[in-house]
């Protein structure tokens, strides 16, 4: 049982290792989906939001990891 838990944790860690980045990306995809499906935003504009949103989140996450922690 302990091994199964450990395996599950490692599998989840494959995709959700960085919690903050994961939540931000999921929020971005959800917002894009809502805008395209329910607000009627052009799908291509939604794609651009998704693309540049991902780029921005990536850079922000890298900077966040490199920022000195207050001691």
């Amino acid at each position, binding site marked *: 049982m302990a091994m199964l838990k450990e395996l599950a944790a490692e599998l989840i860690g494959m995709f959700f290792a960085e919690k903050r*980045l994961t939540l931000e990306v999921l929020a971005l995809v959800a917002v894009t989906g809502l805008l395209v499906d329910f607000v009627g935003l052009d799908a291509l504009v939604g794609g651009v939001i998704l693309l540049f949103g991902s780029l921005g989140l990536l850079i922000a996450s890298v900077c966040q990891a*490199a920022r000195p922690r207050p001691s």
Partner: protein
Amino acid sequence: MGSWLAVAPAVTAAFLASIVEAVEAFTIVLAAATLRGWPPAALGTTAGLALLAAIVLLLGPLLDRVPIHLLQLAIGILLLLFGLGWLRRASLRAAGIIPLHDEDAIFASEAADLAEQANRQRRSLGWAAGITALKAVLLEGVEVVFIVIAVGAGPASGRSLPARWCSLPELSSTGRCRASRRILSNLASASCCRLSECFGPGKGLGIAWPGQDLALLLFAALFLGAGLIGSGFARKLAAVEFA
């Protein structure tokens, strides 16, 4: 002949992904075997392969029951998370924030963990080695399954050749082999892997890019650029810390 040419990139990508993951699993199995000998490591490896085959046989047919657009969306999101994680690590490695992937260090660490685990849990070293080999094979095997599903269901298996070929660098070097330890190669491969991932959720959301698969080339440049910019910022932030 034509059909073989068309499927060759997807087949090659899946093959290379399997090799990369197999190297990771083999490093751990080798550590277990070095510490305790081959019988427990081989037994753990065989059990892991059997368990993996059973999982694939049991769960594989269930994929057919999931609506294709939901599958594309779910796999696209997972790939986006997976790829962003890779690119983030590559940028941090390029900036010197985290160390480069080192198979030798992993080997040493696994061997030390194994010995410590056997002592702590009062298990025989053979049992611990077998379990470690089983876990490594099962875990890396599941990663291969995910990647193969992604290559098969994702945009990289799409119609045109550029998209298929663009997915190859992702799978051929993910920062694990010696050649890809070089920072730029690491960044480039991670950036290339972003090509298909960005298309993933987009496809599930019904987004059609102008130029279709050729847009992947633009994505490659954009994500490579983002990786380099992030790395540059990270290097500056780290320099401020040490100043």
